[in-house]
């Protein structure tokens, strides 16, 4: 016992020592590369027990191995492999071989022979499976080498008869990934007959182990993915697998059937137990439909998803999916949908129905009713009623896709989609509303359907309501009652949820412009005009009244007779609204009025648009004046900036461009101003301290350039160059200012070097764009680069200074589409006088609700900032799930922010705002030198920062001291 203990102590002791050695060894490794394999060799030789060896291998696996030393390491591993008796260590070695062969820049064909060799002598099933995995890695690394692939396939076929499922699995995987694609290579040098990979894999469809069956199907799918055309015979085999006991097999089989049905949609298959024949795609559709009522929900989801992409299916089958063939007591019964339709078409409306209204009518021939084999029958009815919402969502998606390709089906599935608006899970409701919007071109809503749709307007979820507004924007309504109903419901919605105002107005705008003729007869009623009497003028600030006017004015745009029905005040209101809500109210051709903006019609391209012309002209003007006196330049710049800003406010579609250019001009203005400072005229050695303006300008230009680069979506490379160029100028300015204001040369060395590095970086990044930068600052700078590299900092500064003053103003080309990222915080509204009270030290959750426009990748870039009165700032990263995407270019952030603070004596306001985080690396084009370069450029230029892009909202909070 004592001896044993002693041994253990000793062991532990030695272990510690070894680990230290290891650490030292790793340090050495960095210096001398070949020692890596040597160290491993030493370690493995030192290992006394399999457990030890395993430990070493595990440690080894944590570090990457360079491509050059891979081969050496592999040799050592293999050598050890032959000696090793313990299967677990062999397993690890085998897996390491696989990992190593994946190393970039290493060609694994040299280790293949060894791998196959050891495979032949291996007894352990697990190790065998792992080795096959390694071979797979090798094989996928060498996709060009036919001979190797053949050999590997051969090896796989040999081991297919192994008793362990793991080995068979891997063999099938290997076959699927490497099985030869072309049959043309029939004669190989070694006389290997090309195996029919599909046949071999197909044989394993009936393996006794479900895992192997699954692997076989997956291998088949893999073959398909690699471009091999599967035989049609597989279809029948796959169909048999649909009734497998195991869900993963069924799930894979459904996929396979789908694949085959896409390959051979038009071939004819017989229907069993009858002598009829149908198209294969129809048969497959029926079979997949049947799987929608499978016992396992995984299979159901799979089946429902795949249904959506089977567009070639004949409409007869498609429509069956919505028909369940109702019966009651053996008598045919009409569905509620059919009844609703009939009621509608017969012109009467549902009024306190009698019991038995839905009583079944005709008798059904008992022989003709098929209860289960009816294939596609009611598949979607089942899918939409499923217990799992995953299945329901998949079914809705499938409906959407099928309806998009078939207008008649779209008409039919409408009822079911409308029903889904009442689902218990909000996600499903939302999904079905979106679906409906997508197919809305194909459909016209009946009044009773519209009624159900509109009922959802009262939903308390804002997402749902907004989605519904979007839907109404593009719906076709068939009658004027429908329009009236929609308007009434929308107004109801408006009174219930006043925050929806904008969304509702927008919705009515489209509703009006889509249905001018239906709105026309409603106008007198809506405006409550009377043929004889003047009615009271409605309140112009009433959102509901504005809503009605938006509807009418938009309808009037294409309906010239409508304005005749307006009363006087309507015209006045029109003028007011046209000004204040120009995005909602179109220009109208009104009698007795000058056609102010008749030029604005959709047919005119944006370039001919006068406001756009104005923008262009004012920019041209600025760019053309290169050599005006500084005073004049400044004035012109200031004027232009003002103009642009105003233009951006007026014309929302030009806001992005105008802002973008204004920012650029502002940068230029700042630069000019800074260069005009008296500071430059004073002799250098005076070291003026009052250079605030210049350094502040440099700083501000930097900030503005970051804004330009990251806050606008649609910025192209040519703009990025200009922006970077401007930034470079700012940096030069900064350098000069620093040089002038600091005493001593030492700090300048570092700064100069850094600046030159940046110039170098700029050159490398934008080498392609340099020709466009003729005569610019950087152009001149690069010419002088060799001289700058060798000269002293003082010289450099001097050169820079002259260059900066001489440099011309670069023309900023305007991108096609540019939008400024913006955010509006809807909640908290910041109006509450009641402070949010909570116990200090604990947290309070603040709901934040904001809309984001034109933000790319908001999940990573948008942050919430909370500023406390004591200057403390807190940055919160919202979860990716907190962002929704209600439309293109728009996002919505709904999140909770946790506030906490120590106790205050009285309530105070904290500020909440949204920030846009950026990382200067993200936009830099990746070029090959980055990989090969010695110095990592990321380190020097990666600048991360944030730009506030929303107005801050003040929230009144009050942390109370904790009561004891």
């Amino acid at each position, binding site marked *: 016992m004592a001896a044993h203990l002693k041994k253990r102590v000793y062991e532990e002791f030695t272990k510690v020592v070894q680990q230290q050695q290891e650490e030292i060894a790793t340090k050495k490794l960095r210096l001398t590369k070949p020692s890596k394999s040597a160290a491993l060799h030493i370690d493995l030789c030192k290992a006394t027990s399999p457990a030890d060896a395993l430990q070493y291998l595990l440690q080894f696996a944590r570090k990457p191995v360079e491509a050059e030393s891979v081969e050496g390491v592999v040799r050592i591993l293999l050598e050890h492999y032959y000696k090793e008796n313990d299967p677990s260590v062999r397993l690890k070695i085998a897996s390491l071989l696989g990992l190593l062969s994946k190393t970039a820049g290493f060609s694994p064909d040299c280790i293949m022979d060894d791998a196959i060799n050891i495979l032949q002598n291996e007894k352990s099933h697990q190790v065998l499976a792992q080795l096959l995995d390694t071979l797979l890695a090798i094989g996928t690394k060498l996709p060009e080498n036919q001979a190797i692939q053949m050999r590997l396939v051969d090896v796989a076929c040999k081991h297919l008869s192994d008793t362990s499922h793991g080995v068979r699995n891997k063999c099938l995987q290997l076959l699927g990934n490497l099985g030869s694609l072309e049959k043309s290579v029939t004669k190989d040098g070694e006389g290997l007959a090309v195996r029919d990979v599909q046949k071999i894999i197909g044989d394993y469809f009936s393996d006794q182990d479900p895992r192997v069956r699954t692997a076989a199907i997956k291998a088949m799918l893999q073959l398909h993915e690699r471009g091999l055309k599967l035989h049609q015979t597989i279809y029948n085999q796959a169909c048999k697998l649909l009734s497998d006991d195991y869900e993963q097999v069924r799930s894979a089989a459904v996929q396979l059937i789908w694949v085959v049905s896409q390959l051979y949609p038009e071939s004819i298959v017989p229907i069993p137990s009858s002598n009829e024949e149908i198209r294969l795609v129809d048969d497959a559709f029926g079979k997949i439909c049947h799987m929608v009522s499978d016992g396992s929900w995984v299979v159901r989801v799979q089946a429902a998803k795949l249904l959506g992409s089977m567009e070639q299916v004949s409409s007869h089958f498609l429509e069956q999916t919505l028909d369940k063939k*109702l019966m009651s007591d053996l008598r045919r*019964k009409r569905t509620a949908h059919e009844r609703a339709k009939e009621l509608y078409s017969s012109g009467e409306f549902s009024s306190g129905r009698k019991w038995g209204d839905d009583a079944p009518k005709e008798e059904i021939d008992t022989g003709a009713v098929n209860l289960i084999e009816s294939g596609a029958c009611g598949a979607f009815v089942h899918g939409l009623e499923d217990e799992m919402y995953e299945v329901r969502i998949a079914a809705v998606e499938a409906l959407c896709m099928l309806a998009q390709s078939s207008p008649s089906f779209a008409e039919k599935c409408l009822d079911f989609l409308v029903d889904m608006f009442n689902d218990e899970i909000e996600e499903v409701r939302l999904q079905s509303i979106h679906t409906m919007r997508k197919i809305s071109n194909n459909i016209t809503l009946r009044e009773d359907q519209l009624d*159900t749709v509109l009922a959802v307007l009262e939903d308390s979820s804002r997402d749902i309501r907004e989605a519904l507004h979007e839907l109404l924007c593009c719906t076709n309504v068939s009658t004027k009652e429908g329009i009236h109903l929609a308007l009434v419901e929308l107004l109801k919605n408006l009174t219930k949820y006043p925050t929806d105002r904008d969304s509702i107005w927008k919705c009515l705008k489209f509703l009006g412009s889509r249905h001018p003729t239906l709105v026309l007869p409603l106008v007198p009623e809506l405006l409550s005009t009377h043929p004889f009497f003047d009615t009271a003028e409605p309140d112009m600030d009433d959102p509901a009244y504005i809503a009605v006017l938006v509807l009418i004015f938009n309808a009037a745009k294409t309906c010239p007779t409508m304005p005749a029905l307006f009363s006087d005040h309507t015209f006045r209101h029109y003028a007011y609204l046209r000004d204040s809500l120009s995005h909602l109210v179109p220009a109208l051709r009104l009698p007795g009025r000058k056609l102010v903006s008749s030029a604005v019609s959709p047919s005119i391209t944006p370039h001919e648009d006068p406001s756009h012309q104005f923008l262009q002209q004012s920019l041209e003007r600025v760019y053309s004046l290169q050599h005006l006196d500084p005073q004049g330049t400044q004035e012109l710049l200031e004027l232009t900036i003002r103009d642009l800003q105003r233009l951006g406010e007026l014309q929302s579609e030009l806001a992005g461009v105008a802002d973008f250019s204004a920012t650029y001009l502002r940068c230029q203005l700042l630069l000019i101003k800074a260069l005009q400072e008296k500071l430059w005229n004073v002799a250098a050695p005076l070291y003026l301290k009052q250079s605030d303006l210049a350094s502040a300008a440099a700083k501000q230009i930097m900030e503005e350039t970051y804004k330009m680069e990251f806050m606008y979506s649609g910025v192209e490379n040519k703009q990025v160059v200009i922006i970077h160029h401007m930034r470079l100028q700012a940096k030069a300015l900064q350098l000069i200012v620093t040089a002038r204001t600091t005493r001593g040369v030492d700090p300048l060395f570092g700064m100069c070097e850094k600046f030159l590095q940046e110039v170098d970086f700029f050159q490398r990044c934008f080498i392609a764009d340099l020709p466009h930068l003729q005569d610019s600052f950087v152009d001149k700078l690069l010419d002088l680069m060799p001289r700058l590299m060798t000269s002293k900092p003082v010289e450099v500064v001097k050169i820079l200074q002259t260059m900066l003053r001489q440099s011309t103003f670069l023309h900023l080309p305007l991108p096609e589409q540019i939008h400024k990222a913006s955010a509006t915080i809807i909640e908290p509204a910041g109006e509450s006088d009641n402070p949010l009270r909570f116990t200090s030290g604990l947290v309070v959750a603040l709901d934040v609700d904001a809309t984001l426009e034109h933000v790319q990748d908001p999940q990573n870039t948008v942050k919430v900032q909370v500023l406390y009165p004591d200057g403390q700032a807190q940055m919160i990263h919202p979860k990716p799930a907190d962002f929704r995407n209600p439309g293109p270019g728009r996002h919505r952030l709904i999140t909770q922010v946790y506030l906490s603070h120590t106790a205050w004596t009285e309530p105070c306001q904290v500020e909440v705002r949204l920030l846009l985080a950026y990382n200067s690396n993200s936009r830099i084009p990746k070029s090959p030198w980055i990989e090969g370069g010695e110095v990592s450029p990321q380190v020097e230029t990666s600048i991360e920062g944030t730009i506030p892009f929303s107005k801050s909202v003040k929230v009144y909070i009050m942390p109370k001291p904790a009561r004891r």
Partner: protein
Amino acid sequence: MPEIRVTPLGAGQDVGRSCILVSIAGKNVMLDCGMHMGFNDDRRFPDFSYITRNGRLTDFLDCVIISHFHLDHCGALPYFSEMVGYDGPIYMTHPTQAICPILLEDYRKIAVDKKGEANFFTSQMIKDCMKKVVAVHLHQTVQVDDELEIKAYYAGHVLGAAMFQIKVGSESVVYTGDYNMTPDRHLGAAWIDKCRPNLLITESTYATTIRDSKRCRERDFLKKVHEAVERGGKVLIPVFALGRAQELCILLETFWERMNLKAPIYFSTGLTEKANHYYKLFITWTNQKIRKTFVQRNMFEFKHIKAFDRAFADNPGPMVVFATPGMLHAGQSLQIFRKWAGNEKNMVIMPGYCVQGTVGHKILSGQRKLEMEGRQVLEVKMQVEYMSFSAHADAKGIMQLVGQAEPESVLLVHGEAKKMEFLKQKIEQEFRVNCYMPANGETVTLPTSPSIPVGISLGLLKREMAQGLLPDAKKPRLLHGTLIMKDSNFRLVSSEQALKELGLVEHQLRFTCRVHLHDPRKEQETAMRVYSHLKSMLKDHCVQHLPDGSVTVESILIQAAAHSEDPGTKVLLVSWTYQDEELGSYLTSLLKKGLPQAPS
């Protein structure tokens, strides 16, 4: 011949009084023990004397299984266990165990206190009966005894409803109870794995119906309620306390929540509160949505639904009231109905079937003037609506379940004979399995061929495998060994081991046969000729000529002797052990054909 026998004591071609006896591999199981709503005399309960006339029930039944808490499935339980006398185990799920006594007690109260019946079970009997209950979890395999095991599957229908698999050895029966294949607002859909039972006993209430999508009905219901409330009317929904009531509550509750409605919803008190409590507890038995969201909020903790007080009925303004009982034949629902019937703004929604003779049935059939007790005439001006919310599987659902379970045969119960006929025909046609539909008291006997597991020693298996090719699943293989049957288990061992185990000495068994050959030559020469003949014929066997003049082929010995009477005839004595039977008989037949003519 082993067989499974099934005898319905109730629910055979009938709805109500479910009680089915199953004998499987010598075990007797009773499935459900319900009462019939339609009768008030002895016919109310199943005829337990069928099981035994004078013995104790406990001796005849191994266990009783209750599928769910509806009275037509558990109503006779206290009578059966306490008054007739049964002490064995009673199996049911946890929610059933919790809710069942409440319903039984309620039923007893109505029968004894209201109708004044004597000779009925007492509260104490209910309590005693519930003490015999063993609760089971879903998918838990419960060993009733060494051989009999049962397993519960989810059935939807009502909270805690389960389907049961009864299994003895390799024989099994699945009893569905009542089930629902389409999920509703509070429960999921029934599910069973591919257990391939010998027999599936399924309910068939809606054997001839294929139902419309649930969504239309729900939407209709909500729309009606919403409209009535918006116009300021009062809505009465008569319900039974458990089951559908909860579904409708959830439906309205979520709707109110979604639509931000303010009108009050009331639920008449009593039974319901207790029941709601159990719904809150057994959250794992509900559907996906409720299970997933109960961490944030338990759906059964209603925000908008409050307890009803008699005085509320006269409150002005809109309201929705759930009141019991469901058919408007008595109690609170009827009282409220009388109060509200006169106003055309109000509405009554009947969510289920109404028995003939009840007020519910009358108004549904369109009667607008009702005679109440005391010759009063009540004019019904309020709107009357009918909404069917039933939680049974329809024909398609039943077929779906049969497809899922893949039984060898199907037996239909709990439905009307005429409708069953149709479904039976369909099942036989589409699944190609036998389908039965016995009436009450009629016994169905199903022969089974149970597979008998035999243990085999690995050594023997490997030895036998080594002799042939790899096993092929499709082809039978011949295997030599000894089958030992000991204490009802079977083992296949090699003969040597069997001898050793049994302490027996191996007996040599030899077959001998004489073959007469016409050959005038000497014995030795004949032997030689036989030897050369066999050598040429049997190329892959070892043929030897021994010095004593005999010939051996493997272990078969052939000796030639002169015939005692006729010297021209030689007698060949062929002897072989029984192991070499095949070769031996082949040899004899070969020798009987005679030797080829000598070349000399």
